[in-house]
């Protein structure tokens, strides 16, 4: 058996890039970041003003939202075209249709394991939230996001001096000065508007799925008067537990929103601070960014999975605890790995 000589070339590419990062770090010195929780306004005038709610500004995260939605629509269009083409010829999916079908089948089997007969109602929510949050989390790692933007005067302390580059562009240097950077693109999952709105949508849809599955009997989860007249003491306790469930639904909104926001915000703060402190050793911010990639995927999965699990729990009443295990579980063992 003869073997061709393997030439490992990727390690040299990584080494060259590390050295280039070290050299470029001396020219374009990384600055310590200014971190704000709220997204910055890119224009002074609001876009439009509604009478009661207030004025809407063109905020940092809106261009990123536009890019995310355009990217999602492009992927959806090409997947649709590939699947239609394979449906006409020999029913074997190829290319991007194959990839999307394989990925979604994993999550469909997961949903089937938990939901049983309501899988068709629940799965679109799981998959939509997963894909949307996944694209949102991964897009903020591309170069250019959160580093290219407008340079404005800093109100208050902090700020860096600028040196002028070609044309209208300038670069923040490490000395103290008066300018800060308002990035053009900021990750949308770092904006509380995105996470809280997605959390409210998810929790409202959990209640809707509960009502669809159980009818008006879904309210017995919150106002539990089942045992109140038979066994008064336990019945009263059940009633109070039911009221506590109502509060727990509200806390689900906060939990969803702040889990995603906190993870993503901690991610960009970590990358910015590591880059500001040790930016010349460019492998270190790169490793933090790789961790961010992992965390972004996990958080998208967890958001979707929790929505799915709560929806599946909402479809079950008292005593309907035994859901479809048999064939779904056997199939999911074949497909999982």
């Amino acid at each position, binding site marked *: 058996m003869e073997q061709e000589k393997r030439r490992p070339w990727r390690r040299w590419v990584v080494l060259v890039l590390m050295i280039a990062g070290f050299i470029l770090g001396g020219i374009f010195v990384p600055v310590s970041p200014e*971190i*704000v*929780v709220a997204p910055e306004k890119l224009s002074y005038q609001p876009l439009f003003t509604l009478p009661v709610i207030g004025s809407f500004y063109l905020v940092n995260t809106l261009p990123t939202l536009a890019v995310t939605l355009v990217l999602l629509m492009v992927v959806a269009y090409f997947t649709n075209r590939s699947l239609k083409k394979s449906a006409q010829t020999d029913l074997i999916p190829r290319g991007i249709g194959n990839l999307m079908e394989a990925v979604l089948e994993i999550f469909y089997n*997961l949903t089937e394991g938990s939901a049983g007969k309501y899988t068709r109602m629940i799965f679109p929510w799981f998959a939509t939230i997963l894909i949307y949050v996944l694209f949102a989390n991964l897009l903020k790692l591309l170069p250019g996001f959160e580093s290219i933007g407008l340079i404005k005067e800093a109100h208050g302390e902090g700020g860096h001096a600028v040196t002028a580059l070609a044309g209208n562009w300038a670069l923040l240097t490490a000395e103290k000065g008066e300018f800060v950077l308002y990035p053009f693109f900021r990750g949308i999952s770092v904006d509380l508007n995105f996470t809280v709105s997605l959390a409210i949508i998810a929790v409202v849809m959990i209640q809707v799925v509960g009502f669809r599955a159980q009818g008006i009997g879904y309210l017995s989860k919150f106002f539990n008067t089942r045992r109140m007249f038979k066994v008064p003491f336990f019945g009263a306790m059940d009633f109070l537990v039911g009221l506590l469930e109502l509060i727990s639904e509200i806390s689900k909104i906060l*939990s969803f929103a*702040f*889990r995603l*926001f*906190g*993870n993503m*915000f*901690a991610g960009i*703060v970590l990358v910015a601070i590591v880059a500001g402190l040790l930016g010349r050793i460019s492998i270190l911010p790169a490793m933090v960014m790789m961790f961010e990639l992992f965390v972004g995927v*996990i*958080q998208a*999965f*967890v958001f979707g*999975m*929790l929505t799915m*699990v709560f929806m599946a729990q909402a479809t079950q009443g008292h005593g309907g605890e035994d859901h479809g295990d048999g064939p779904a579980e056997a199939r*999911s*063992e074949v497909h*999982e*790995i």
Partner: protein
Amino acid sequence: MEGNILDAMRYVGAGLAMIGAAGAGIGIGLSVQGALTGMARNPDTYGNLLTNMILGIAFSEAIAIYCLVIAFLMLFKVV
């Protein structure tokens, strides 16, 4: 020393808020222990256990992230 007391207490508060992350560390360790024990006893259920372990880790980590959010709110002078 100079500086005002409000800023100083903000920094102290941010540090104290992160004590809550210790509970999250213990929780993640316990859930990974359970998952690894299960995987060692029954390697066929590796995929199932991995999925549920990741889910459990995300729950525990969320508590640490709540503490981190309070610390950030204090550090960056939002509250």
